């Protein structure tokens, strides 16, 4: 398998394992989870994280282009 496929498989398996987390709530501080709002927090953080990652990817490509132009 190509390396990228291996990474994707690893990631998919890690995500699947989170299904095992669906056990009964541990204490009263599960308010966020019981009211379903914890998913909002997860979504917000993911948006921020992916936004930053996209910025890094853009930066990476820009630098690669500059390096290619300069070395040619």
């Amino acid at each position: 398998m190509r390396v990228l496929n291996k990474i994707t498989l690893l990631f998919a398996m890690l995500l699947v394992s989170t299904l095992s987390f669906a056990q009964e709530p541990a204490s009263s501080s599960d308010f966020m989870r019981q009211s379903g709002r914890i998913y909002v927090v997860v979504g917000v953080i993911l948006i921020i994280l992916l936004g930053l990652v996209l910025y890094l990817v853009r930066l990476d490509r820009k630098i690669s282009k500059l390096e290619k132009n300069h070395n040619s």
Partner: protein
Amino acid sequence: MYKSWWKILSVALLVYTVIAGLLGNVPQKPALDETIRNLYFHVCMWFAMMILFTISVIYSIRYLRTLDHKFDVYARQFAVVGILFGVLGYATGALWMSYTWADPNKPFLEKFSGFAREPKLVGAAIALLIYFAYLVLRDSVNDIDKRARISAVYNIFAYAMLFPFIWILPRLMESLHPGGEGGNPALDPRHTDSNMRMVFYPAIIGWTLLGVWITTLKIRVSLLKEKMLTGDLLKKSAE
């Protein structure tokens, strides 16, 4: 620096950390409750900082052995991003502390009278200040080779100082950090269970790889800038 597999791995691990970190089960500890999830974020910042500083000092030593200028650039950038992660770790720790250790019965300004009795806070501050001094030292020397040599030697001492201030002294003293009395000054291994470790170890790798990615971008920009500048100078002198 140019391969992308480890960058994709970093993003995948971080997404996993956020999802599993917030939705997974955690042991409910007194005073900490759900905030123990910060393990995947605040503590990972410090781990990433240590790893980045280690890489930085390795490149400093390699510079001293080979006098190859690019190792000096690598060492500096790894130290810079390490400092960034350290500052983030400090800031997140301050926020976390204000919700867990601070005495809720005292008015706001008096809540943190316990601050000075936390050896790791002071120790980490000193360690970071030593690395800030590394940056100041670099900027104070004009000659490129002298700057690289002096700062490489300083980097080795700065790295060595991390250990007494962050690892050794806090273990000898009482600490507010969980498990502090006589035990592990950062985290009592009895407080984490295997559920948490399943997220914690990938999180360390994910955050560290992110730090390495940012560092490689800074290194490439720095080297490119140097090449462009010398290229322009050569062109100008040829005219």
